């Protein structure tokens, strides 16, 4: 299927992630993507799979679920056009620690790491914009990791209670 670039750009231009992108930069990103359609309950990725792409939501919904040591399974919903999933997989092909599934028919754009690297190598300003966004995410990612580390290893009394509870449950 041929991507209707103009239509995608129109959808994405006003969204929070892409609003700082110049028209040509957004166009470059969209042109580097390939469309991906998911049927209801179809998986975008599963735990343990290697990730090598970021995904931009166009229409529908994706639920990302992961296991939290504090309160079991957590689900984060992505349901606004322009929501971006897996931006960090543009940097490296890490293994997914979460699962992502579409609860309904969903349309996305897939930006592979290879396509991103080509944009970057060409010195395309769109790639630099993506890296700027990545830098924003990094700060949050680092804070979250530090908080989780502190929750578990900085509060031994609370962790001990959780561990004992778990042992009793098994």
């Amino acid at each position, binding site marked *: 299927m041929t991507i209707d670039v103009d239509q995608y750009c129109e959808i994405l231009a006003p969204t929070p992630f892409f609003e700082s992108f110049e028209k040509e930069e957004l166009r470059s990103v969209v042109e580097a993507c390939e469309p991906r359609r998911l049927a209801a309950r179809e998986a975008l990725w599963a735990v343990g799979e290697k990730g090598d792409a970021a995904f931009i939501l166009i229409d529908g919904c994706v639920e990302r679920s992961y296991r939290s040591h504090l309160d079991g399974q957590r689900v984060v919903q992505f349901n606004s056009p322009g929501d971006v999933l897996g931006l960090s997989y543009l*940097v490296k092909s890490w293994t997914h620690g979460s699962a992502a599934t579409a609860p309904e028919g969903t349309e996305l754009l897939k930006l592979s790491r290879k396509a991103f690297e080509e944009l970057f190598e060409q010195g395309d300003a769109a790639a630099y914009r993506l890296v700027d966004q990545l830098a924003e995410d990094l700060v949050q990612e680092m804070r979250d990791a530090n908080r989780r580390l502190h929750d578990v290893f900085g509060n031994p009394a609370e962790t001990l209670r959780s561990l004992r509870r778990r042992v009793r449950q098994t």
Partner: protein
Amino acid sequence: MTADDQKEGIQEVSLATGLSEVKSIFNNIGLFKGLSGEELGEIVHACKQAHIGPGEVLFEQGDQSDALFIVGHGELEVVGRSEMGEKVVLAILGQGTVVGEMSLIEGGPRSATVRSVSECDIFRLEREAFDKLRAQRRPVAYKVILGLAATVGERRRQTDARIQEVFNDPASHIDAFESQLHEMVGRLRKS
């Protein structure tokens, strides 16, 4: 030299270290992996070089971070405070070690104090200088951010794996957390 430099006791000096020697130190730093010789040169030129004597404090825990530091020569120690307020040496950093990478993209308080153990030559890359490279759309700045993203991503995954390990096998970690708690209570009683 900025007011912050003076506060941190840093004296800017002209080092005898040649550019090629500096480049060879920088070349072995993971954060700068994949940079061309020319790009490494851009980073070196964006850095301030400084010399500090033994026992001098580079920054204190809680200070606002605005720069990354690279050890050129000598040794630094990272000092934190335990829950009881005791000083604990967390790490010794030698040549080619980077301190405070995240300062390049965000401010916020320093998580530990860093001071010199010996005479040290250090390189200071301020966020302001790095932001200039970003504003000029210099590829080197973006390569460094990608390097940073790889490092942070790796650390985050290691953190998650460590936590997962504890909660996947709670029975075999209870003893370790009990001991930690008893030690804390013991120190509290002592103090």
